[in-house]
Structures are given as structure tokens and as C-alpha cells.
């Protein structure tokens, strides 16, 4: 489901202490983009800048032609899942989901029904009254994804939220991500260490290495070409 460019990184430069990263490219609507590269290369930092936690040094981040700079994180047209701490431990699962509809949690009966429906859709029906500590790691990831469904923002940023899960569970979650993205029509940007993840659900890949995030291209093309930075990262065993 490719469309016109929605997310544009326009001569973007971000910096944190001595670290610098530049990017100048765009992403079409509905694309599923993997950010791949060695740890410390700046994948998470790039997501943080798009999400609004880090102001660019120069350049702009545009959504449908509009500069996102003046918008605080919660007002940007996106949802983000972090590596951990995606749920508040002192709120119930249903309350954590409800935050996606109304941050002050004054939910109408209709909104409560939508929370219940979202829980059911990710396979957590009946668990709304529990606290996150009473869920397994996979169930917590599902709850966070259910909130993404409720927020229904057009851009979804994943900063390796499934890194702590086993391979089978992670594959399940990626399939669920693909389903959620398809259902909400969202454009997806996900950080990953693992080329398998990139191939599994992504149609574009961005190599982040040596201070640069390169323009997206199809994963097959990227892995076939194996630019030196990627080859260094993947190592000789990977073919």
C-alpha cells in the first residue's frame, strides 16, 4: 500500500554530546521501514528525534509537509513503543489502554467498550483489571500494542520493544505489529538488530552507520549489495 511521501527528513542533523547523525530522505505512506545498523549508531536517537524527545541541531522533520518541531511528543501524529517501560505499573491494563484515548482517563461508556474490544483483538480479553506485573512479557507487549490500536496515529515507531522476548514470541509480535499497522493504515519505522526481522515484515530498510542514516531501499537490495558498513556489522558468517 504505497502512497505519496508522508514522512520527510529534510537535511536533518541530530546530536547528543559528541555523537552526530545526519539524514535526508523521505518515506511513502503505509511503508514499513526497518532501521538497521550496529548498536550505538544512532537508531534509537533518530526515533527519539522524530518522536519529539530531542530537538534537531539543523534541518526539519516534516509530516505531510508540516514541520513537527513546534509539537510536543504527545501531540505528534505518532505512537511510539520503547524498549521497556511501555506500561505504568501502578495502573491497571485497562487504564493503561485508556490513556491512549484520553490522558485524563475520564472515559465514556463507549470508550470503555473500545478498550475492551482492543484487549480482545490482541488476545487479552478479561485481563483488563490486572496490573502489568501480573502479565507475562508477551502479554505486556500485546497490551502496549492494543494501546497503539486505540490511539490510531498514522505513524508507528518501534524502538525494539520485543528485544527481551524469545524468538517465537517475537515473531508472533511482529505479525501482530504488521496486522495493527495494516488495520490503522499506519506507516511503520522500527529499529532492529536482526536482519531476519527486517525481512519478515518490512518493505524498506535504512542503514544507520558511521554518522549517517542512508535513504531507504528494499531490504533485499540492501542485503544483496552489502555496503561495507553493513558487511562490518553483519560479519562474515551472515550471507
Amino acid at each position, binding site marked *: 500500500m504505497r502512497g505519496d511521501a508522508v514522512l520527510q527528513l529534510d537535511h536533518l542533523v541530530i546530536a547528543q554530546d559528541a555523537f552526530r547523525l545526519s539524514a535526508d530522505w523521505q518515506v511513502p505512506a503505509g511503508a514499513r521501514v526497518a532501521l538497521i545498523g550496529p548498536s550505538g549508531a544512532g537508531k534509537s536517537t533518530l526515533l527519539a528525534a522524530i518522536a519529539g524527545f530531542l530537538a534537531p541541531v539543523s534541518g526539519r522533520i516534516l509530516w505531510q509537509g508540516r514541520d513537527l518541531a513546534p509539537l510536543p*511528543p*504527545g501531540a505528534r501524529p505518532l*505512537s511510539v513503543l520503547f524498549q521497556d*517501560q511501555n506500561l505504568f505499573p501502578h495502573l491497571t491494563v485497562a487504564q493503561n489502554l485508556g490513556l491512549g484515548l484520553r*490522558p485524563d482517563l475520564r472515559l465514556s461508556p463507549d470508550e470503555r467498550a473500545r478498550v475492551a474490544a482492543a484487549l480482545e483483538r490482541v488476545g487479552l480479553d478479561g485481563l483488563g483489571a490486572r496490573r502489568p506485573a501480573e502479565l507475562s512479557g508477551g502479554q505486556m507487549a500485546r497490551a502496549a500494542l492494543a494501546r497503539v490500536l486505540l490511539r490510531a496515529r498514522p505513524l508507528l515507531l518501534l524502538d525494539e520493544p520485543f528485544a527481551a522476548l524469545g524468538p517465537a514470541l517475537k515473531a508472533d509480535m511482529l505479525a501482530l505489529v504488521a496486522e495493527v499497522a495494516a488495520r490503522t493504515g499506519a506507516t511503520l519505522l522500527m529499529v532492529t538488530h536482526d536482519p531476519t526481522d527486517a525481512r519478515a515484515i518490512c518493505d524498506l530498510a535504512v542503514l544507520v552507520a558511521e554518522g549517517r542514516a542512508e535513504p531507504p531501499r528494499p531490504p533485499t537490495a540492501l542485503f544483496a549489495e552489502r555496503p561495507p558498513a553493513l558487511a562490518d556489522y553483519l560479519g562474515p558468517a551472515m550471507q
Partner: protein
Amino acid sequence: MAGGAGTIGGLALLLVAAPLGAVAWRAGGLALSPADLAALRFTLLQAALSALVSVGLAVPVARALARRRFPGRALLITVMGAPFLLPVIVAILGLLAIFGRGGVLNTALAAAGLPVLSVYGLQGVVLAHVFLNLPLATRMILQGWQAIPAERFRLAASLGFTPADSFRHLERPMLIQILPGAAATVFAICLTSFAVALVLGGGPRATTLELAIYQAVRFEFDLRHAAGLALVQTALGGLATLAAWALARRAGFGAGLDRALPLAAPGGWRQGVDGAVLALAAAFLLAPLAAILASGAPGLLQLPDQVWPAAVRSVAVALVSALMTVGVALVLAEARAAGRLGWVELAAMLPLATSGLVLGTGLFLIVQPFVPPMILALPVTVLVNMLLSLPFAYRLILPEAQALQADYGRLAAALGLVGLARLRLLTLPRLARPLGFAAGLAAALSMGDLGVIALFAGEREATLPLVVQRLAAAYRNEAAAGTALLLVGLSFALFWAFDAGGRRAAA
């Protein structure tokens, strides 16, 4: 939120800066009389002696607590926090019951035909300060001991260190780093001593600057003199606070992986000495409390009439100032944790450099041209108590606010959880425990405060500590003891209620 935090921080700063400015303006230079110089000398002497004795006695107590395990150890450490919550006037009455002219000790000495000891003057002031600060010094030094990784003691044991070797290579370096900060902290606290000097000191040879300020306002009606003394007190307090801050750094002993290893405690005579040290320290700290309980209980049933209105005033002042303290401390800590407004730290910590009498004198100077200060006794007491508790509350809340920001700040921002919704759904539930503890502490400190209220209050504005002091000064000992017991009970009850409330609300 940023604008609100800036406004509140600015107001807190103004509430300290304006009285200091009034003091400096009215003092019009430093001209100290011989009596003022004597007060300055006595203030420094008693604070230095109090610091040295408190820290000197705290070292063996902390060492015994660090290396011995026995039933009741945790309880003993908890009880050692009690003098911090104990109203100073009550502590003094307790000490008088043990060490006073008709106290337990002198009765025993007289029965044995020995000369009796006087608890008034320098030795009495130092005794009371050691009683009030020994627990604090012990806790600071105990933290130093616990900061030595257990691996170091294991290594020492494997190398066959004797206790003297361990002391030389592990304990002495730690003490060299910890003791100056502990001593400077106690020194700074004792510099601002008012209630102790009011009851146990006095006269030309045992007057502190704080007491001299009080006398200048209440008896000489010489506000210019009071302002001059307050200026000296502020300079002294500021320097001492800075020194304590600079010296009270944490000892660096490298990383330790496992602190659960029990320290290898030497046996033999050292075990006996540790036991004796702990027994003596516990007796010294608990006997005055027990004396208050014993002497106050009979008087509790027939308290004088002025006690009950004073109790109501005290509780009201404590509640309002406690709520204001945690409110301001929370706003400032949240702003600091979010990385905004670095200067709010100054607003939160500046009161440490002042004292109740200094702030009181400044506010007295400001309001006196417009209204009789007596009318404002209670509001001024609320404000000053709030300011004096603010540094403690801020220090308690800040690390928790920083952890909250690190753990959930991004998630809350990503979900648009801001403003009042953030306060209600995130901050209050997650910080309920430190907020409750800080509110309890502020309420107890306010309940026990005998400083600014003495400066302002007439007959009809007195709070409980002032009533206790007046009853004791009139030698109505039974009524004073009963009122003191009521005061302790209310202080601890308020502390407990806030602390337990915070624990219960903690998610």
C-alpha cells in the same frame, strides 16, 4: 507547568531574600558590643564542642551497629531517628528529668555523698545538642561504614588482617572522608540553636546569637540591634552550611557487587565493648524519653486551660505548613527532575543557611510598620516553618522525582499525559511514599518548633511548645510534663498519619 514552577520557586526565593534584605538594610553596618561578641564566641564554642562530642561518640556507636547483628538492631536504628522528630523543648525537659537538679543522676550522686552536677550553662547546652545530634551523626557515619563494599572486608580477611590492620586500611580512610562532613553538619545545626539556649543557657556567659536576637526584640525592643545580630548569624550560618555541603561528600570505595555478606566481626573483648557502647547509647537516648512518659502521664488528665487552644493552633499550623512544604517541594523537584530551571535548587536549599529567628526578625521588620506583629504570629509561623522544612522535603522528593522522570517521563510525554492529569495519574500515585514521609517530617518539625513563634506570640497566639516552655519557666513541672507528653503524642501521631497515608496510597 514551567511557568508555575518558576513562579513558586521565585516566591520561595523572595520569602527568604526579603527578610534577609530587611535585616541587612535595618542593621546598617556591623557594630558589635562586648555582649554581642561574647554571644558570638559562645555560639561558636558550643557549636564546635557539640559537633566534636557528637561525632566522637557516634564513631563507636556506628561501628558497633555496622559490625554486630543482634535482635532489635533494626528497631534501635529506627528509634535513633526519633530525636529528629522530638520537639526540642520536650527533649530538654526529658534531659532535665535525668540530669537536672532534682533529676535521677543528681539524686543518686547526692545519696552517695558526691557533689551534684549543674546542667545549666555550657555543659548543659552541649549535653542537649549531643542528645539531639548523636543519632544524626551516627547515621551519617553508619552510612560510611555500609558504603565500604563487603568484598573489601572479605579481601582483608583472606589476607589475615588484624582489626588494627582493617582499621588502618579500610576504616580510617572512610572516617577521614566522612567525619569532617558529619561534624560540619552538626556544627551548622547547633549554630542556630535557640530553644536549648533559652532554657539551659542564658546570662552573659551562655547566650547564643539566636537567643540574643530574641532578647533584643522581646525585651530591649531594639530592632536595629536585633537586625545587626541577625546579620552576623546569617553570615555565620551561610558559611557553615556551605562548608557542610562541601565536606559532606560520599566516600569513594569503588564498586562492590554484594553487600549482603556479613562483616567479619572481631570477637573477644571487642564484642563486649561494642555491646556496652550500644547499651550506653540506647540508655542515653531512651532514658529522657522514658522520663517524659513517666512524669507526664499523671499530669495528662488535668492539663491547664490554655493547653487545648494551643494544641488546636499547633496542629493547624503544622497541617498547613506541612501541606505547603510538600506542595512547593514537589513542584520544585519536578521542575528540577525535568531538567528545567536549575536555579530552583537554590530556592529550595537557601533556607538552610538561615534560621527561624533570622527569618522571623526580617519578617518582623517588614510587617511591624503596618500591623502589630502579634496579629500575624500564626501565618508567619506557618511560612517560616514551611521554609525551614523545605530543604529536607526537597531532598527527600528529588531522587524519587528524578527516577520517575527517567522511568516514565518519555512514556507520559508520548501519551500526552501532562498537567493535572499527569499529577493525578502518575506523580501522586508514584511519589505517595516520599510525599507522605516528607509531609510527616514537616508536620512534626512544625509541631515542635519553638523559635519564630516565641518572637511573635503574645498570650493568645501561643503554640504548644511555647506553652510547655512558659509552664516550665514558671516551675509548674507537672503541668509542663503533661503538656510535653501531649505535644510528643501529637507530633508523632501527625508524622505517623502522613507517613502511613503515603505508604497506603503508594501504588
